[in-house]
C-alpha cells in the first residue's frame, strides 16, 4: 500500500470548483471589456447624449417663451402705471401700487426717488424688499439716468414659502421724472419651477433607463458569457487533449446553438480522424513489434548457428532478408490503409473502365486458381465504367481473389462477377465453394490482423480484408461479406465477398 494520505473528496471538489472559477476568470479579465456589456454602455451613452440634446432644446424653447411672456406681462403693467401717472399724477401711482390685490401676487412693484430711496412698495415687494439691494437700485438708476427710459431689473430673493430656495425676479425700471421711478418685477419661479420639474422628470426617467439598462446589460452579459463559457470550457478541454468534450446544445435555435453544433461537428470529425491516426499509429507500433522481435530472435539464433557452422551464413541472411521483406510489405499495407483512412478518400481518382480492370484481374487470377486445381469462372459485364483509383481497386480485388483461391480446397471453384446492380452500383463479387466463414465471425474478419483459427496455417498476416474495406470506404463504397452458394457435394457453404462502388455520375 502507498503511504500517501487519503485525499479529502471535499477538497477535490473545491479544487474543481476553483479550477472552474479560474477558467471563467480567464474568460473575463475585465467585466467592462466584455462585448455585451460594452454594447450596453455604448447604448446608454448614446441614450444620455440624446436625452441631453432633447432636454437642452426644451430648456431653450421654454425659457425663451417664459421670458417673453414675463416681459409682455411686465410691460403691460409698466404701461398701465405710466398711463395712470400721466392722467392722475404720482400720488395715484403710489396708491395703485399700495393697493395691489392678491391677483398681482407674482409681481413686486415699487417707487423710489432719485437717491434710490424707496417711497412705496406693494405687498410682495415689501416682503422681498430686503432682497432688492441698494446696489441693484443704484445700478438701475444709473442706467436709467444715462438715457434709457426703461432698464431691466433682475434679482434673486428667497421665496416667502421656502427661505432656503430662491425666487428669481425679472423686471424693469421706468423713469417718470428725476425724482420718481417705478419698477415692476415678476417672480419667474413658476417657470423655473416647471423647468425644474422637467429636469427632475427627465433626469429621473433617464436615471431609471440607465439603471435598468445597466441591469439588462449585465443580465445579457451574463447570459452571453455563460453561452461563451460553455463553448470556451469545451474548447479548453479539447486543448488539453479531451477530444470527447462536446458543447451542450439547448435547442433554442439561436446563433450560439448553431455555433455549438458546428463546433461539435468539427470535433466529431477531428475525433474520428485523430482516432484513426492514433489507431493507425497504435496498429503500426503493435503489429510491427512482434514480427520485429521475431526477426531479431531469428537473427540471434542464426548468429549462434553461424558461429558453429559458418557455411550456414548465406542461408541465414537469405532468410533474414525474406523476413525483412515481409515485414516491409506489412508495414506498407498498414501505412497505405492509414493514409486512405486519414485522407478519407483515395487519391488520384479517375473514371476508368471497370470492365477492363475486372478482365485483367480475372486473367491474372485464373492462372493462379487453375494452377491450384480450382475451377475459375468469370462473368464480366461490358462497358462498365467506375470512378476511382485503379491501383487501389486492383489491390482490393487482388486481395479478395487471393483469399478465395487460398481458402478454397480442391476440388472446388471460384466465380468472379462484375455487374451493375439495380441501383447502378458497380459490384465486383467473388464467390467460392470453400468452408466459408461462420456468420458470427463475418463482421470481424475485415478488422486488421484478425485471422480465424483455421486460416492460421496459411500464409498471410490478416490485413487483406481490412485493406479491401479501407479501399471500399475510400471510394464511398462498401465491402459485403455473405454466405456462398451453400453446401453441395461435400463442398461449401462457401463465402461471397463483394466490393460495391457507387454509380458514376452522368
Amino acid at each position, binding site marked *: 500500500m502507498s503511504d500517501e494520505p487519503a485525499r479529502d473528496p471535499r477538497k477535490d471538489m473545491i479544487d474543481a470548483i476553483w479550477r472552474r472559477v479560474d477558467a471563467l476568470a480567464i474568460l473575463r479579465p475585465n467585466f467592462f471589456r466584455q462585448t455585451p456589456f460594452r454594447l450596453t454602455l455604448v447604448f446608454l451613452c448614446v441614450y444620455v447624449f440624446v436625452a441631453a440634446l432633447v432636454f437642452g432644446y426644451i430648456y431653450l424653447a421654454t425659457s425663451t417663451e417664459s421670458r417673453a411672456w414675463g416681459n409682455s406681462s411686465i410691460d403691460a403693467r409698466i404701461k398701465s402705471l405710466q398711463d395712470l401717472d400721466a392722467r392722475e399724477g404720482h400720488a395715484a401711482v403710489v396708491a395703485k401700487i399700495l393697493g395691489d390685490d392678491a391677483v398681482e401676487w407674482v409681481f413686486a412693484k415699487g417707487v423710489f426717488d432719485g437717491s434710490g430711496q424707496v417711497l412705496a412698495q406693494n405687498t410682495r415687494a415689501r416682503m422681498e424688499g430686503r432682497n432688492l439691494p441698494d446696489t441693484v437700485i443704484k445700478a438701475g438708476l444709473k442706467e436709467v439716468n444715462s438715457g434709457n427710459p426703461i432698464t431691466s431689473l433682475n434679482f434673486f430673493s428667497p421665496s416667502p414659502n421656502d427661505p432656503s430656495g430662491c425666487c428669481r425676479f425679472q423686471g424693469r425700471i421706468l423713469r417718470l421724472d428725476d425724482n420718481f421711478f417705478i419698477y415692476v418685477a415678476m417672480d419667474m419661479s413658476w417657470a423655473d419651477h416647471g423647468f425644474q420639474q422637467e429636469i427632475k422628470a427627465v433626469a429621473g426617467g433617464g436615471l431609471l433607463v440607465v439603471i435598468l439598462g445597466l441591469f439588462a446589460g449585465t443580465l445579457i452579459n451574463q447570459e452571453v458569457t455563460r453561452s461563451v463559457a460553455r463553448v470556451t470550457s469545451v474548447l479548453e478541454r479539447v486543448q488539453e487533449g479531451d477530444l470527447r468534450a462536446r458543447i451542450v446544445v439547448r435547442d433554442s435555435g439561436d446563433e450560439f446553438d448553431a455555433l455549438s453544433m458546428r463546433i461539435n461537428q468539427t470535433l466529431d470529425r477531428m475525433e474520428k480522424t485523430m482516432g484513426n491516426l492514433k489507431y493507425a499509429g497504435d496498429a503500426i507500433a503493435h503489429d510491427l513489434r512482434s514480427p520485429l522481435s521475431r526477426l531479431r530472435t531469428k537473427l540471434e539464433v542464426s548468429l549462434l548457428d553461424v558461429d558453429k557452422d559458418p557455411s550456414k551464413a548465406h542461408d541465414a541472411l*537469405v532468410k533474414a*532478408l*525474406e523476413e525483412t*521483406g515481409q515485414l*516491409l*510489405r506489412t508495414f*506498407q*499495407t498498414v*501505412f*497505405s490503409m492509414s*493514409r486512405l483512412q486519414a485522407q478519407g478518400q483515395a*487519391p*488520384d481518382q479517375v473514371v476508368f473502365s471497370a470492365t477492363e480492370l475486372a478482365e*485483367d484481374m480475372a*486473367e*491474372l*487470377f485464373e*492462372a*493462379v486458381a487453375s*494452377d491450384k486445381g480450382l475451377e475459375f469462372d468469370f462473368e464480366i459485364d461490358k462497358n462498365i465504367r467506375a470512378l476511382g483509383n*485503379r*491501383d*487501389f481497386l*486492383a*489491390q482490393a480485388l*487482388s*486481395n479478395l481473389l*487471393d483469399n478465395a483461391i*487460398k481458402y478454397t480446397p480442391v476440388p472446388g471453384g471460384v466465380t468472379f462477377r462484375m455487374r451493375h446492380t439495380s441501383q447502378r452500383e458497380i459490384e465486383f463479387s467473388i464467390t467460392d465453394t470453400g468452408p466459408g466463414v461462420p456468420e458470427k465471425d463475418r463482421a470481424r474478419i475485415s478488422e486488421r490482423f484478425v485471422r480465424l483459427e483455421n486460416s492460421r496455417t496459411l500464409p*498471410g498476416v490478416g490485413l*487483406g480484408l481490412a485493406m479491401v474495406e479501407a479501399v471500399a470506404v475510400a471510394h464511398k463504397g462498401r465491402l459485403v461479406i455473405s454466405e456462398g452458394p451453400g453446401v453441395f457435394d461435400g463442398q461449401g457453404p462457401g463465402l461471397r465477398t463483394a466490393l460495391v462502388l457507387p454509380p458514376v455520375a452522368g
Partner: protein
Amino acid sequence: MNVLIVEDDAEAALNMQRGLKDAGIEARLAGDGEQGLRAVKDEMPDVIILDRMMPVMDGVSMLTQLRSEGADVPVLFLSALGELEDRVSGLRAGADDYLVKPYALSELVARVEALSRRKEKDQVETILRVGDLEMNLISRVVKRQSKIIDLQPREFQLLEFLMRHVGQSVTRTMLLEKVWAYHFDPQTNVIDVHISRLRSKLDKDFDRPMLHTVRGEGYQLKA
C-alpha cells in the same frame, strides 16, 4: 554502363553503388541536385538515379532543368513510402521509372538495367531474336528453332518484355507494372504462375531452358 546516383543520404548512396557494382555497373555519386547537374555536364551518364528529397536542389527541380536542357538520359526516380504525390510529380517532371523507398537492392539494379537497355532498343524493330527464339512483332508469331509457340496475348507481351531485357533480371513488381500496367502488391504468386505457364510453353520441348528464376530477385531470359 555509367550510372549517376543523386542522393543526399551518403550511406544509401554507397549501398546503391555497391549493389550496382556487384552487377557490373559503375556509379558516380552526387549529394544534391546542383552537384548532380555538374556531374551530368562532366560526363553524360547512361542512367540517373534521382532522389526526391534533397537539400539545395531537390530531385524534381533537377529533373525539370535537365529535361529543359534537352537531356533525354533515362531517370529512375526515388520517392519515399506513401508519397504518391512525389511519384506523380516525378513522372510529370520527366522521370522514366520510379521506385518507392524502401526498395530491394535487386529491384533497383533490375530497373537500372532495364532503363539502360530501353535506350539502346528505342529504334523500331519488327523482329526480336534471343538465341534460337524469334518473335515477329508484326505477325505476332513466336518461333523457337522454327517451331511455332502458341501464346496468349498476355503471354506474348510477357515474353516480349523478357526478350527486350534479355540477360537482365526482371522482378515480379516490374512485370506487373510493365506488362499488366498495374501498381499494387499482389501478396501472392500471381506472376510466378504466369511465368511458369510461359515457361512450360517456351522450354518444355527443348533441352536447354531459356527462362530462369533468379532467387530473391525475379526472372531472367537467357540466350
